[in-house]
């Protein structure tokens, strides 16, 4: 199917990316950073969509992958004498994929709610470890570090401005989107969707369902870790709050709000959630979760397809 990806898709893709690249130039500093943050959370949401939307495995543990990406990058940036962007990315991804291997090995043997509960428990295990291992992780206070400059080894090196950081994040997220889209449309992605639709039948046809699930968790964890490292680079600190399960819950909210199984949907869901939070918290301060949570519950009941669900067929073409 991927070979038939229409020119319509590419036109849309280029227009959206170009718009996202140009818009921050006209935005004030705060909203520019905000847009970058939306992209980072959007990448996390897209990474979980492989599991939630395409394979039908609801993960309540994405904060573990995100958090390990974050702490991995933090560790690399703290240890190195001259912080290097690419090393930080690599270490963050390595840490996240280690966790993903661990979670994938155990959790994929379980299905449905048991998978959800076990991912939840795994993320809490990592939270407790990070929270209590104060010597290494800084415990409750977290870690602070400096932002690495953008480098192309041997050619170029410059400090990030908010705009160039935005472009960098946009490039990573856009490429990740293309990669994820390619994965979900590949024969491998088709098998994942058939697992979602009917697992026993997929097994009966002769696919080794567990292996497919393991790879799906690994890929999902890898991209979630990538968003964690990007967050580290933007915010220059790591805190145990990002490993806490509320982050995982927010990721599920992004998916449900935006539309599971569309890749773009979760990103839109993340944007909607963050904008609503920003808007509502001006009136209700920390109580913004009351109206937001009620909106979310209403969406689960009356709009299970999410904002972009009605576009599912077209977005996956």
């Amino acid at each position, binding site marked *: 199917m991927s070979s038939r990806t229409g020119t319509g898709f590419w036109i849309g893709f280029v227009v959206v990316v170009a718009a996202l690249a140009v818009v921050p130039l006209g935005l004030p500093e705060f909203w520019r950073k905000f847009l970058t943050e939306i992209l980072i959370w959007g990448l996390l949401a897209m990474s979980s969509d492989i599991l939630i939307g395409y394979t039908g495995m609801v993960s309540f543990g994405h904060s573990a992958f995100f958090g390990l990406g974050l702490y991995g990058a933090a560790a690399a940036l703290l240890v190195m004498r001259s912080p290097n962007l690419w090393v930080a990315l690599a270490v963050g991804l390595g840490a996240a994929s280690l966790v993903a291997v661990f979670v994938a090995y155990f959790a994929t043997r379980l299905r*449905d709610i*048991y998978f959800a509960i*076990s991912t*939840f428990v795994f993320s809490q295990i990592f939270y407790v470890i990070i929270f209590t291992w104060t010597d290494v992780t800084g415990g409750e206070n977290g870690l602070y570090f400096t932002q690495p400059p953008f480098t192309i080894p041997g050619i170029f090196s410059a400090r990030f401005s908010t705009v160039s950081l935005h472009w960098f994040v946009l490039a990573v997220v856009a490429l990740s989107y293309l990669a994820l889209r390619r994965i979900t449309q590949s024969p491998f992605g088709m098998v994942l969707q058939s697992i979602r639709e009917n697992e026993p039948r997929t097994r009966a046809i002769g696919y080794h369902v567990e292996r497919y699930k393991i790879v799906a968790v690994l890929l999902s964890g890898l991209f979630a870790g990538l968003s964690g490292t990007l967050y580290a680079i933007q915010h220059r600190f790591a805190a145990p709050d990002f490993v806490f399960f509320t982050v995982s819950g927010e990721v599920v909210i992004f998916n449900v709000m935006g539309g599971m199984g569309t890749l773009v949907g979760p990103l839109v869901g993340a944007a909607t959630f963050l904008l609503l939070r920003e808007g509502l918290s001006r009136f209700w301060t920390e*109580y913004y*979760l009351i109206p937001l949570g009620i909106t*979310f*519950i209403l969406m*689960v009941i009356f709009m*299970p397809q999410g904002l972009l669900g009605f576009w599912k067929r077209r977005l996956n073409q």
Partner: protein
Amino acid sequence: MFEQILVQTVNGLVNGMVLALVASGLTLIFGIMDVVNFAHGDLVMLGGFTGAVTVAQTGNFWLGLLVAALAIAVFGALLQVTTLRPLIGRDPLTTIIATFGVSLVLQKYALWQFGPTARNIPQPIPGQFELFYLQYPWYRLGAAVMAGAIIGGLYLFLKYGKYGIWIRATTQDRIMASAMGIPVPLVHTGVFAIGSAMAAASGVLFAPLASVTQTMGAEFTLRAFSVVVVGGMGNLGGSILAALFISLLEAYASLVVSPSQAVIVSFVVLILTLLFRPTGLFVPTPK
């Protein structure tokens, strides 16, 4: 050392009974409507707050227990009718997602209503007795006994009460029960109300042992989940044994590591159970 172990055994049993009360509400709700209630711990928290407010007003612990259980039962029934009834027939995963939303709302609602300070309920049973090297409050034993009594009452109700038999019939076969004239939707609402009342009661019983904060719900949810899975989803007896088992393990583990790390022990038990005996530790092997 030996004395420490014995003291921790008593601690573990006391915590285990309160946890069993939380978990039996959760497992009842799961067994009957396939609803994984992510907001269960927050019902515990709301019950604790309602109890604390009532006790502060009237000075009567037992009245607080009663008011909290009734108020949260009504609240639970409303919650079930408004959020969970429309989801009947959908994937059980949808109910986790919806009740997660409920949990977020309840947590912030409690913060708004009761403020960020922790609430305390004075121990209703005064006095202490000597347990080796420390003065052990009678109330801790009293809380365990009361939790046991409430669970026992639930068991008798399910076994002999008319509505208890309705509930068990609905658990076994929803469609058949409906064909026999049992109002299944009402049974669902009723069960959710009973589960909520039990959560609230455990919140009130727990409050004098520690204190009530609006963030305590998540921890209770997680622990009750572990218990329910280790005991076998939907199995009341298994949940009680699992609650005692996990609490004892945590109590012993906290002799060696800090209590916040001891939680990991129960997680490990949970994951091992899920891997090697996903039907639950304390249930007969299914044929």
